């Protein structure tokens, strides 16, 4: 599973990455992480509010930092 965190490097993006890593670890997922900071690339995923969470090229969520358990619920069906 390839997870991308979209955002220019704001606190929200760091928080999103933290909760996503937490959720992936709890689910025991074999995930690689990548930060996408380029605005053109971010907008390319259709994100207009950062941060955004992309898993295997599909945008799952944008505009807010969910709790780790909410991310778990998002990631579980994709495992």
């Amino acid at each position, binding site marked *: 599973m390839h997870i991308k965190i979209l955002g220019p490097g704001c606190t929200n993006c760091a928080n999103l990455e933290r909760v996503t890593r937490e959720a992936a670890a709890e689910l025991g997922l074999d995930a690689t992480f990548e930060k996408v900071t380029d*605005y*053109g690339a971010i*907008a390319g995923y*259709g994100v207009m*509010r950062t941060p955004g969470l992309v898993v295997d090229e599909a945008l799952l969520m944008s505009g*807010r930092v969910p709790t780790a358990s909410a991310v778990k619920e998002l990631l579980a069906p994709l495992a």
Partner: protein
Amino acid sequence: MAVMERVHRATPLERWAGLGAAALGWWALYSVNLPFWDWLLRDVVGLDLETRLGSGIHFFLYDTVKILLLLAGIIFLVTVLRSFMSVERTRAILGGRREGVGNVAAAALGVVTPFCSCSAVPAFIGFVAAGVPVGVTLSFLIASPLVNEVAIALLLGLFGWGPTLLYIGAGLTIAIVAGFILGRMRPERWIEPFVFETTLGGQAVDPGYALTWNDRVQMGLEEVRDILKKIWPYLLVGIGIGAAIHGWAPEQWFADHAGPENLLAVPLAVLLGVPLYSNAAGVLPMVEALFDKGLPMGTLLAFMMATVALSLPEMILLRRVLKPQLIGLFIAVVTVGIVAVGYLFNAVLPA
């Protein structure tokens, strides 16, 4: 985090009971705020509230609690209501509009769409690449910080409905007119070319879609926490300056130098406000204290608008997508609009 987890799992009954209890607690705190500080400072500490020091300290403590309560309550309500809107939906509404009608719609949507100017760049790219005219997009970007929930909450709490509605009307007018004028100047030539080359791939997910009430309540709580965390230093400095003005600033000096007769007061206030980076929470306590000293409302609202609408950090962010010429014009047009509004209010409102 524990609170958020509990909200996340709350049953409907728990949720409404919790909200009801929170509303009651809020109302109780708001009601005892003034009598409490009167009692503590006058009867317990023995301060004379008529003296400069006494009234300054009273102003600081009472205002801090009042403003924090107002902010928490209104940010929560606005965030829950706004969770029914999204930037994606706003873009879809604006997609087919021509300039003119589009500017009006964009300014109105700028008020109701959940948005932070930290996302100005991706939103700008998303709007323009999807075919929303540049001027219409700018109307949205001007209205969003200018007419925001923090400003509305505080204006309403400190000055009542009249000045609040005037402020909202003026903010919308500035956003509509400025966006329209900038749109007439063929602004496309001053936009970084990569914006037009961006192809919007992927399936846009609408964050407002499929949210449960628990999600909305949780978003409201998170927003209150995040905004208060971000603005409390501004708030304390602002209230501190307000308290100092309240206790020490000479009324006569302000009346002589910054009263309605001084025609330079409005542009000076705006020029002072533009480089000042603060937000409504930092500025309004000062505005309140200066209003008590007899400064006219138009001058004060113009100062406040200049502070919240144009900020250096946002301009630096926008530089990624706008060339310096357009940033310069953007600042100039909005500044002129704010000065005009200041004069208008001073002429219309009784001092």
